[in-house]
């Protein structure tokens, strides 16, 4: 049977990171008796791929890396998510969307809970997600800066993240206009070659 698009995508997620599973899940060896649970989790992952960030609708919540656990208990499903930023106003909307989407697929008892630890980082964003961002016109977080930018940030007065690529013309000849953009997670840049201003999803 040919693989569906969704199944193919799921494989990509498996390869690019297992951020969507809790540590417990990662360490869990699925024994035979767990098999039904494992199938439920996979099914739910496929459904969660359809839940998008309301502010950046091309990104699913799996692309963002904010799903931290899927726990089926009896006939109830608990989904654990973590906020990108403390004040992210999208969190409540995302929780509602998760519930609605799962109800659509017949899961009636759904609980969405939040965890703060470990703190979300842009390095949990999938490669797929970063590519989708770029196509959408938002520069994705720069992998190279990601690792130590936070640590160096306060020695960088009047400096900016380097090599941010313009999503329109791909020039890296770009300039920070404002550290704070249209949402908490983005900064505003301008391309000095094609002159287009653009959003940059900043390292976090």
């Amino acid at each position, binding site marked *: 049977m040919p693989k569906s698009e969704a199944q193919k995508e799921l494989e990509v997620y498996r390869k690019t990171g297992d951020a969507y599973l809790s540590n417990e899940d990662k360490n869990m060896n699925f024994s035979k008796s767990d098999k039904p649970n494992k199938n439920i989790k996979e099914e739910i992952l496929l459904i969660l791929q359809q839940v998008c960030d309301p502010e950046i609708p091309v990104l699913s919540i799996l692309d963002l890396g904010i799903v931290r656990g899927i726990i089926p208990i009896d006939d109830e499903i608990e989904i654990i998510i973590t906020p990108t*930023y*403390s*004040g992210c106003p999208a969190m409540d909307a995302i929780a509602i969307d998760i519930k609605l989407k799962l109800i659509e697929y017949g899961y009636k008892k759904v609980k969405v809970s939040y965890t*703060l630890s470990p703190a979300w980082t842009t390095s949990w964003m999938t490669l797929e997600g970063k590519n989708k961002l770029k196509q959408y016109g938002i520069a994705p977080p720069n992998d190279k800066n990601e690792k130590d930018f936070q640590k160096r*940030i*306060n020695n960088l*007065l009047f400096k900016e993240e380097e090599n941010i690529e313009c999503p329109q013309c791909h020039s890296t000849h770009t300039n920070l206009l404002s550290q704070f953009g249209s949402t908490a997670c983005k900064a*505003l840049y301008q391309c000095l070659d094609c002159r287009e201003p653009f959003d940059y999803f900043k390292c976090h």
Partner: protein
Amino acid sequence: MNQHQQINESIKCLIDQTLHLADTCLILGQRNSEWCAHGPILEQDIAITNITLDLIGQARNFYQYAAKLLVEYEQKQATEDTLAYLRTEREFKNLLICELPNGDWANTILRQFFFSTFQVLLFEEMSHSKDAQLSAIAIKSIKETNYHVKWSSEWVIRLGDGTAESKERMINAVDNLWMYTGEFFIPAKYETIDVVLLKEKWLQKVKEVFDEATLIIPDKGFMQSGGKLGAHTEHLGFILSELQYLQRVHPGAEW
């Protein structure tokens, strides 16, 4: 004190400390939000309101935790909303500097710089807290607060080392705010984080930025405190009457 009383006492301290952290974030967030649509230019209007959003988010995390503790250990009915909307001025434990009026842009910037510089140091300490939730909130928040320090430091330098007028405004802001910075480092009984230890590091960072900004740190003088214990300036009542109006007039109203 027997063991039971000691546990009760430490839970009380934890709740008070969490409320102090929550109130501080909420009140500064509320103040900064007054800039919404009034910022000097669009990008900076967006910047200060983004910072506000982070502060309100941090406040929510602290309030949710305080409410959980109150429900679990004191059998009180509390939610993040009742804690923010239904407590009186004397119950608020925020730092005084947060409740002062915004003043001009220089005053707002300088307060944010003093506060965020302190907050990063506080969160660094808190990230090692034995309390798992306080530690989690600290680690989460510090990433955001680092951006606040960077942004406000740059503005302090830009204005301090700017035009004659911007410099004069910065000097006025220093005169206005300095006496409220001492409170950062005066520990309240309920505080488990040793804030005294943070003073040297804070002063060092302020000095670095002030040197760049050609500003001078004032000589030692009187330092006002009281906010951590619920003794506030007259300004807090006015903030709360605006912040709490809807819930007081229409109890339980929801969006």
